[in-house]
C-alpha cells in the first residue's frame, strides 16, 4: 500500500467579497512509498509550499483526495489531524521555528509534551535525538546562543523525536551556509537510511538531488516525476561527496 496517495488535489485561494480566485494547485496526482526520499522542486510561486502544507496535514485541499496509509484524511476532524501530525509527521522549516524563550532540550521535548509521557521519559527520548544530531553539549542553551546550522540541527532533532514515519523539510538549507547545509542534508539522508520517509521541498536542484526521486512542479502542475540516478551524498563533516 502507498504511504501517501494524492488524487487530483487542487487548492484555490479567494478573498471574501472579491471574485478573484487564485488557483495554486491545479490537479496534482502522485503517491509516496515508505522509505522514499522525495524532493519536490519548483520555483517560488509554483505551489510547492502549498502542496507541502497539504501533504503535511496543515491545510486541506479545495478538492481531490488525500489518503494516508489508505485512510481518507478529508473525513478527519482538526483535532484528529493534530494527533496524526504528532504521531506520523515531523516538520523542518527554513527559518528553524525554535521557540526563542526555552532551552534546546525543552524545544526538542515540545512534540512529546502533547503525547503524555513522564518527564523522565520525555527527556530520555529528547536526549537520544539531540545526541544523534550532535548537539548534546548545548542542551541548556537558548536558541539565540546557537549558530544557524546548530539551530537547524536542533529543529531536526525535534522533527524526529516522536519517531514519525514521514519528515517534511521545507527549504531546510535556505538560511544556512553551505557547510551547515551539508551537515543538515547528511542528517536527513541518515534518517532516510534508518527508514524514515523524507519529503524535501526546495527550489535548488543541488539540494533536491540528495533525494531518491524528484517531482518538478510549475504553476500548480507536475512537470516531471523521475527517480534520481546520480544521487548526491552529503558529508557529515560538511565536505561535498558523491
Amino acid at each position, binding site marked *: 500500500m502507498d504511504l501517501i496517495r494524492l488524487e487530483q488535489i487542487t487548492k484555490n485561494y479567494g478573498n471574501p467579497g472579491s471574485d478573484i480566485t487564485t488557483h495554486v494547485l491545479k490537479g496534482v496526482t502522485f503517491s509516496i512509498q515508505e522509505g522514499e526520499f522525495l524532493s519536490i522542486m519548483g520555483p517560488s510561486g509554483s505551489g510547492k509550499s502549498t502542496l507541502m502544507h497539504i501533504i503535511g496535514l*496543515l491545510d486541506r485541499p479545495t478538492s481531490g483526495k488525500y489518503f494516508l496509509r489508505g485512510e481518507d484524511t478529508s473525513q478527519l476532524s482538526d483535532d484528529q489531524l493534530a494527533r496524526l501530525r504528532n504521531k506520523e509527521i515531523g516538520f523542518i522549516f527554513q527559518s528553524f521555528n525554535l521557540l526563542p524563550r526555552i532551552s534546546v532540550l525543552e524545544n526538542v521535548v515540545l512534540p512529546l509534551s502533547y503525547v503524555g509521557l513522564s518527564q523522565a521519559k520525555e527527556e530520555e527520548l529528547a536526549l537520544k535525538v539531540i545526541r544523534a544530531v550532535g548537539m548534546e553539549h548545548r542542551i541548556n542553551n537558548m536558541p539565540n546562543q546557537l549558530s544557524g546550522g546548530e539551530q537547524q540541527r536542533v529543529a531536526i532533532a525535534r522533527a524526529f523525536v516522536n519517531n514519525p514515519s514521514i519528515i517534511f523539510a521545507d527549504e531546510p538549507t535556505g538560511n544556512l551556509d553551505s557547510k551547515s547545509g551539508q551537515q543538515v542534508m547528511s542528517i536527513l539522508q541518515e534518517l532516510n537510511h534508518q527508514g524514515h520517509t523524507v519529503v524535501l521541498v526546495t527550489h535548488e536542484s543541488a539540494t533536491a538531488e540528495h533525494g531518491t526521486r524528484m517531482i518538478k512542479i510549475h504553476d500548480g502542475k507536475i512537470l516531471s516525476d523521475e527517480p534520481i540516478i546520480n544521487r548526491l551524498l552529503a558529508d557529515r563533516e560538511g565536505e561535498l561527496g558523491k
Partner: protein
Amino acid sequence: MSLQNLKANKLRSFLTMLGIVVGIGSVIVIVSVGAGAQSLIVNQVTSVGSNLVGVLPGKSEKNSPPASIMGIKITTLTFSDAQALAQKNNVPHAVAVSPMVRGYEQISWKNHNNYFNFSGVTDKYIIVQNVAVAKGRFISENEALNMGKSLVLGSQVAEDLFQGQDPIGETVKIKGVSFQVVGVMEKKGSAGFENQDAQVFLPLATAQKMILGINYITVARIKIDDTKNIQPSINDIEALMRARHRIPGPDQDDFTVENSSQAIAALTTITDAIRYFLASIAAMSLVVGGIGIMNIMLVVVNERIKEIGLRQALGATKRDILNQFVLETTVVSLVGGIIGIAGGVSISVLVALIAKKLGYNWDLVISWQSLAVSTSISFLIGLIFGIYPAKKASRLSPMEALRYE
C-alpha cells in the same frame, strides 16, 4: 511549559497582574481596616459598661430610633420618674440612676468664650457612666437637687477655655448665670457618637430651670448590678413607668427602654453597611484588572501566532492551545491575587500597629474566609478573562499561523 513564557517576560507579567494586585489588596485592606474601626467603635461603647439601661421619653416604633433622638421634644419623662426608678423596691437590681438633660450654650470665662455641649446631671452620673474626676470633685447630690452653681469641665473644654491655667475655683458664666468650677473630668475619648471630653456638667435642677427653662428630663440611665439581670430589670422598669403614667398596655407607651447591646447592634449594622459599600467599590477595580489582563493576553496571542502555528504543527490540538493560554492567564491572575493578599494583610497589620501605638482600642481582624474568597476570585478572573484570548488563539489555522510574520 507555558509558565516559562511568564518567567521570560517578568516585567510584563508583573505589570499585567498589577490590576489584580491592587484590587485584591484594597479589598483585603478595606474589609480588615473596616472591621478594626468597627471594633474600635464597639469597644468604646462597651467601655461605658454593657449593663446600662436607658429610659427615653416617647414611644419608639420597632426597628426605628426613639423620637427624642430625631429631635422631637417630648416632655413625659420627669425627675420624679428617675427617683422612682432608683427605689430598691421598684427596680431591685438598679445600682444607680442618672437622670440627664442636655443643651448647647455659650460659656465664657474672662474674655474667653465658646459654645459647648452641656449636661445637667446628678452625682450618680459618674457611677452610671463609669467615669472619674481628674481634678477637684464632681457635682454633689445637694447641688444637683437644689440648684447649686457648681460646674465640672470635660478635659477638652478645660484646655480650650483655660488654655493651661488651673480652672478650679474660677467662675464661668452661662446665660448670665455664674458657676464655680469645682472639677475637671478625666480624658475619656469619644464613645460612639458622644464626646464626654468636649462638654461641661451642671447640677441637674440648675440646668433644667435656669438654663433650659424646662421641667422634664431627656434621659435616665440606669446601671444594673449584673448583665444577667438586665432583662428582668427592663420588665420592672416598664411596669413601673406604665403604673406611674397610667398606661394600660405596651401600645400606649410614652417612653422607650433601651440597653447598650441594642446600641451596639445598631452601630454594627451601620458600620457593616459602610464596609460592604467600600469593599464593593474596591471589587470593581478587580473587573478593571481583569480587563487589563485580557487586553495584554490578546496582544500576547498576536505576538505568538507563529508559536501557536508551530505547536499545532507539532501536534497540539485546539484544546491544548486553549488550555495553555487559559493556564497562563489564570497563573498571572492567581499570583497577582496572592501578592495582593500579602500586601493587603501587611497594610492591615501596619494600620493596626499604628492605631494601637496611638492608644486606640483596635483589634486586628483578618478572616480566613476573606483570604479564601480573594484567592478564588482572582482565580476566577483569570479564567473568565483568559478564555476569550485563548479561544482566539485556538481558532487559528496552523498553516496561516505558521506563515504569519
